């Protein structure tokens, strides 16, 4: 059966080719995929694929994440891509996450938020080739529910893989060097503004296994804060 799919100004003659470019025009692709005409054709051509896509459409969804999954259901061999950006490998994705820090990319957060990365790993059989990585990504998806930013940056460090930390165009090989830089002069003011809210450093420390140091910090700060609040309340009276 001949197939012609028109998306924006491009014409595709196979589902796989169409799927590879979904990331470039997500909204238009979504309109097409959910149309009765497309679904009818898909049902005739690829009934199993039709069932998978129909199941996705029948549950609550977010358009970008849905179309990401559709892309890899149709063509698991297409490069990792999302929101008009291709990531040639996981390391590049990780690097992008941590080089943007302490800012978070809301689209890259979707990889954990909507379980896109683990879905991709399953479609491409990376879950079998590298079960440790797959397990860690699944764990981060759980952690994302408790602390979004920390899980997000941990993903960045996990995928980047070199145990370095980037900040203001500098690269540091360990947390001590980084902190020695961060406490100098005006750096401390800039870094201090987003230190807790971004969770960037905490993600790095947790990734490297400094859990006890994080716990120590949290307990000291928590106690001081608690006493400050009590004191404020007492002095109001």
């Amino acid at each position, binding site marked *: 059966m001949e197939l012609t799919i028109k998306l924006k100004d491009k014409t595709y003659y196979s589902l796989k080719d169409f799927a590879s470019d979904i990331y470039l025009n997500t909204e238009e692709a979504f309109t097409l995929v959910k149309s009765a005409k497309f679904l009818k054709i898909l049902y005739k051509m690829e009934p199993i694929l039709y069932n998978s896509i129909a199941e996705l459409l029948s549950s609550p969804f977010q358009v970008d994440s849905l179309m990401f999954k559709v892309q890899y259901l149709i063509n698991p061999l297409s490069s990792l891509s999302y929101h008009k950006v291709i990531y040639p490998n996981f390391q590049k994705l990780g690097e992008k996450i941590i080089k943007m820090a302490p800012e978070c990319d809301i689209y890259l957060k979707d990889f954990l938020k909507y379980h896109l990365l683990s879905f991709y790993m399953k479609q491409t059989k990376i879950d079998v080739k590298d079960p440790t990585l797959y397990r860690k990504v699944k764990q981060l998806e759980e952690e994302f529910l408790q602390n979004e930013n920390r899980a997000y940056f941990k993903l960045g460090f996990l995928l980047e893989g070199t145990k370095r930390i980037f900040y203001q165009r500098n690269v540091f090989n360990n947390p*001590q060097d980084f902190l*020695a830089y961060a406490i100098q002069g005006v750096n401390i*003011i800039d870094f201090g503004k987003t230190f807790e809210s971004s969770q960037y450093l905490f993600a790095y420390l947790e990734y490297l296994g400094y859990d006890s*140091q994080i716990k*120590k910090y949290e307990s000291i700060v928590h*106690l*001081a804060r608690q006493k400050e609040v009590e004191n404020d309340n*007492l002095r109001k009276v």
Partner: protein
Amino acid sequence: MRNEDKVLLMASIMGVETSLYIPAYIEDLRNSQIYLLLAKKIQSLRKNKDFRSVDLVIRFEQLNLENISTFEDYFNSYSEILDILNNALEDKEINPLLNESDDPLGKVKILFDGKLTTLDDMILDERYTDEYKISTFKEVYLNYHKEVKKSLMRPFVEFLMMEEVIDKNIEEKSKMTLLLLATILANAIIISLPLFPVDTFRMIYDGTLPSQPVLIYFYIIVGLLFILDAIMIFFFNVKCKDFRFFLRAYNGLKRNGNLEKKILKKEERFYGLILSHINEKKILTMKVKKVSIVNLEIKNLFYLVSIKEKLPYLTQKWTISYAFFSFNLIFYLALGGFIITILLFLGGHI
């Protein structure tokens, strides 16, 4: 806590060198409103004899801001300062279990039916059933119990950790004693030189040695030695006094067994006493201090904790310095004396 404070704290925890910033932080803390307010509060609490006040004063005195070397220590001290201040600011009704007042127990106020009422008034109030009074008092009693536990928890923990401190001090005290005895023995040898079958020694001691300079020189050494010994013995006793009191108090507490159980028993007796007076509608005429858990043992406990920091490790340093000094002094003086004696002998003066 400001953002910069948190960054420095994290850096300190991670082992980054931050000690340069500490002096400025300590200075700011000393000049801060909370510290100044606390110092003022402590001044007025010193006049009170109740347990809570005494405990707060001790905690304040144990703050050692000069020894802070890390940001962990700094913020722990900061939280401690706030906690002491918060406790000092809280308006609390007295806890009879922690108070040694001579006032009648019946005059102690509690919160009953939304307002402050004395125990006697509660007992005699006919508008309420005994069950209601008992259930209200149970809540009050549980708060008393919690406060007792909170007041004593820290001293108890410090008491349990004291064994190591005691052992170390006993060991040091034994070494000090040996050194003292060795010094005294050295003195004794010099003093007993006349018993040696050497004519020169005998002549030195009975003053018949022809050489005056040697005689005078010898008397100076002996005199100095006695003075040094006297100073040594005096300071040894003075310095060890604290440690002796400490050891007596500590051993007393250890010998008397499970203090926690005793306190609990006394609390239960107090509870039973109030319940029985509620049931019999009798007022409480006994003094507060009769039901108080504050006794000699508790006072010893707080005493131990308050002087623990002052335990005389110094004595050991001081004693060893003295011992080395005096042995060296004797040796060099003796050597000097010996050389002079030889020179005089060779010069034909003796």
